[in-house]
């Protein structure tokens, strides 16, 4: 009811069933079905439903660890779900089919409407209906005496024209009238909106293929060079080509965390992470920069985001003769809010046997009732590192890639902790300990050896994990999105309406002015708009009359 009867819907499919359609006939039939408004609605709702499962089951794209966990928890169900692409819903065949059909439908819908609209823009407003009294906002005025019908209509035409209407004068059986229409922008906005959606889909679907994203963990002091090999993990787009990597360098100079200390209810909650970095684009001067959680650094066509952080204890292993066989700062993965962290040390060479160590790091070590350790505060108040030592085969030689964050103990023998009866190694920064079986020594290096006694604040290095992205489509997507929003606003708020004014000479010689309107789409203000036109028009007639010399008026 808020749509006028001549509103353009996709043409209704013909009711007659033809006996033999032939291929072209079938295609035409299919196309008509697809571009039907009802199909569009169906596909739209189907898309909403199809998006639901992806929020119930972890997705490889956003939560790969969750997927692994799901497989472990539901070994029977998971492979079946995987068959129907339940872990890749948003790139699955069925999800893609729905949105592609929807967008084909959209294009098929919008193109004829654009043609229709283009013609409407060039056409004259339609004839004035015979009887205005049946239409919305119908109102009459009596023209000031002596007003000529022709002049009244002409002044109404000019008034409507200056108010943004397209207006034309009609004459029908001696009745003269003006017909006006405005708000073509409404349909323009609607079309712009739908085209912008197509624009978004194309740029996202196609342009996204030229980008990449990669992750890299850096310990304070380390430098990263933007080349393929330097990434810990790298996800190229379909059309990515590694010559587009610009080899800049990025050094993590310092990583700062501020913890809440005043508000006891939120004590220890991190309130700021800042990575101070130095970026050197190829052939340019080095520049100091910062990466924060909501503030990426943008350089050489890539955006660098801060995703995670933690501690990276520096561990040195020496053989029995005191020769260093291993020294490195190892990122330990945080396990809880107080940064109890878990890390793995692998010493493949230099000792009698390959050595692996599973370590826990507690920035502020506390002992729970059970006797187990935990961390009670995320900053370095009372740091402690514990290590369980394993010897045997690290499994590095098999050529299978292994994670630096896990230790495969199948081929190894546990030497400390657990059931071995040998105490785990416990170290504070700067301390060393003998390895079991006379294998050598292990040291937890103090990163700030000169600090005062009891001040551990700088004793352990921190690491930051960065996400580095290149996405050439971002600006395009944003532009289309803004266009869509503007189109939406115009199409929902610009009223499209027709207004008519008719001058009807009465038998007593006076002139009756009739006004009425017709809504085209949602138009709550139509009636007051017609009343407003009527008032302004009669005012105009009155003032033009008083402006004419009194002699002429008689």
């Amino acid at each position, binding site marked *: 009811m808020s749509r006028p009867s001549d509103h353009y819907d996709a043409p209704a499919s013909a009711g007659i069933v033809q006996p033999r359609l032939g291929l072209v006939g079938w295609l035409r039939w299919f196309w008509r079905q697809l571009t039907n*408004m009802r199909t569009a*609605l169906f596909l739209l*709702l189907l898309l909403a439903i199809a998006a639901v499962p*992806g929020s119930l089951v972890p*997705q490889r794209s*956003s939560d790969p660890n969750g997927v692994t966990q799901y497989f472990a928890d539901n070994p029977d169900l998971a492979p079946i779900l995987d068959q129907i692409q339940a872990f890749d819903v948003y790139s699955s065949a069925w999800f893609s089919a729905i949105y592609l059909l929807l967008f084909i439908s959209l294009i098929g819908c919008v193109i004829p409407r654009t043609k229709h609209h283009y013609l409407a823009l060039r056409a004259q407003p339609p004839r004035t209906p015979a009887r205005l009294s049946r239409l919305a906002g119908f109102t009459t005025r009596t023209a000031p005496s002596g007003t000529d019908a022709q002049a009244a209509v002409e002044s109404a035409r000019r008034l409507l024209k200056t108010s943004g209407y397209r207006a034309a004068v009609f004459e029908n059986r001696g009745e003269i009238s003006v017909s006006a229409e405005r708000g073509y922008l409404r349909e323009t906005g609607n079309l712009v909106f739908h085209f912008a959606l197509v624009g978004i889909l194309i740029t996202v679907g196609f342009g996204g293929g030229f980008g990449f*994203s990669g992750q890299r963990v850096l310990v304070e002091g380390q430098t990263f060079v933007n080349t393929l090999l330097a990434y810990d993990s790298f996800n190229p787009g379909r059309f990515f080509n590694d010559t587009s990597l610009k080899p800049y360098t990025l050094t993590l100079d310092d990583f700062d965390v501020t913890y809440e200390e005043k508000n006891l209810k939120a004590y220890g909650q991190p309130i700021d992470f800042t990575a101070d970095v130095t970026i050197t684009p190829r052939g340019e001067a080095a520049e100091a920069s910062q990466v924060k959680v909501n503030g990426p650094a943008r350089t050489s066509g890539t955006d660098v985001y801060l995703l995670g952080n933690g501690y990276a204890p520096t561990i040195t292993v020496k053989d029995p003769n005191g020769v260093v066989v291993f020294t490195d700062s190892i990122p330990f993965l945080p396990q809880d809010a107080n940064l109890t962290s878990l890390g793995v040390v692998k010493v493949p060479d230099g000792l009698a046997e390959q050595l692996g160590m599973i370590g826990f790091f507690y920035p502020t070590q506390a002992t729970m009732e059970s006797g187990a350790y935990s961390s009670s505060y995320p900053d370095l108040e009372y740091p402690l590192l514990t290590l369980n030592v394993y010897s045997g085969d690290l499994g590095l030689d098999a050529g299978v890639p292994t994670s630096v964050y896990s230790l495969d103990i199948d081929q190894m023998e546990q030497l400390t902790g657990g059931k071995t009866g040998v105490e785990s190694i416990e170290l504070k920064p700067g301390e060393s300990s003998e390895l079991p079986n006379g294998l050598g020594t292990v040291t937890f290096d103090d990163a700030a050896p000169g600090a005062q006694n009891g001040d551990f604040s700088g004793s352990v290095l921190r690491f930051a994990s960065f996400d580095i992205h290149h996405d050439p489509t971002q600006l395009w997507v944003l532009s289309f999105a803004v266009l869509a929003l503007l189109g939406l606003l115009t199409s929902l708020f610009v009223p499209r309406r027709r207004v008519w004014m008719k001058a009807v000479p009465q038998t007593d010689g006076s002139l009756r002015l009739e006004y009425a309107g017709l809504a085209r789409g*949602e138009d*709550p203000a139509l*009636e007051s708009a017609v009343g407003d036109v009527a008032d302004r028009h009669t005012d105009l007639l009155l003032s033009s009359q008083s402006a004419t010399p009194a002699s002429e008026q008689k």
Partner: protein
Amino acid sequence: MNLNELSILSLYSAMAVYALAFIAFSFDLARRSAAVGSAEAADETQRQAATARTDAAGASGGTTTLTRISARIANDAAMPYGRSPSLRVGVSLTVLAFLIHLMATVLRGVAAERVPWANMYEFAMTGTLLIVSVFLIVLTRADLRFLGTFVTGMVLVLLGIAALRFYVEVAPLPPALQSAWLVIHVFVATLGTGFFALGFALSTVQLLQFRHESRVASAKSGRLRFLATLPSSAMLENLAYRVTIIGFILWTFTLMAGSIWAEQAWGRYWGWDTKEVWTFIIWTIYAGYIHARATRGWRGSRSAWLSIIGFAAVMFNFGIVNVFFKGLHAYSGL
């Protein structure tokens, strides 16, 4: 007593006043039913005459009433219903409760030294405040006071859940939330929810009214008698549409602002995170609602169902996804 405790006290006071407003509005609905009942009991011929008269008015003025907006939107109820003191008491109490509620929210913001919408408790507090604001603003343009029971009732339930289940102490913003987009994105989303809530209420009444109308047409008596004093289902449908498209535009903006923020915080503007998925689902359902109104065979009750489903999804997104689903948007504070 510190500012946060004062805020909590204000919030409980506001809830008490909302409860009184709810009672006043319920009283009004009961009175409407009674009024309709006694009118029906009146002389049969008189009734027929009255129906004939309203029918005539409906026929000649049907489209006129629908598209009319002077300053206020007229009511085209089948049975005119005079002044109601309890209705006015209800509105006054709602305004009073709103002011106390506003104070509670502002105090919470001052206590936390930031915008009061950074965890579930605060979302609920600000969100319900906005629902009431939207309701009161719309009241100045159209007489939707008959929704008072619904609005105050819903706000009471949500505030109750928030105070009992979602309460958390004032805490500083985690780094991920330290962004101007928190102010914009979350506020606009919450405002949109306010409009969707009203649209949902209107669509629900529209469905009830539609059933009532068809019962009356087939000369059966409706159960919810007060419906006779409310606008026709066609008018309710138009009102619901008008309110909902404002919500839809705000939601569209929310979606876009969220993407821009996600790009800054997580390095990608869209990643199908659970919260993003649900925001998208809600957007799509409401786009379906708008299309339904332009599709043959879907106007009227079917589109109303879409508006109801849409709002159910909004509530699901807020109450269930925030708390129970895993994702990057882990800001419930619980």
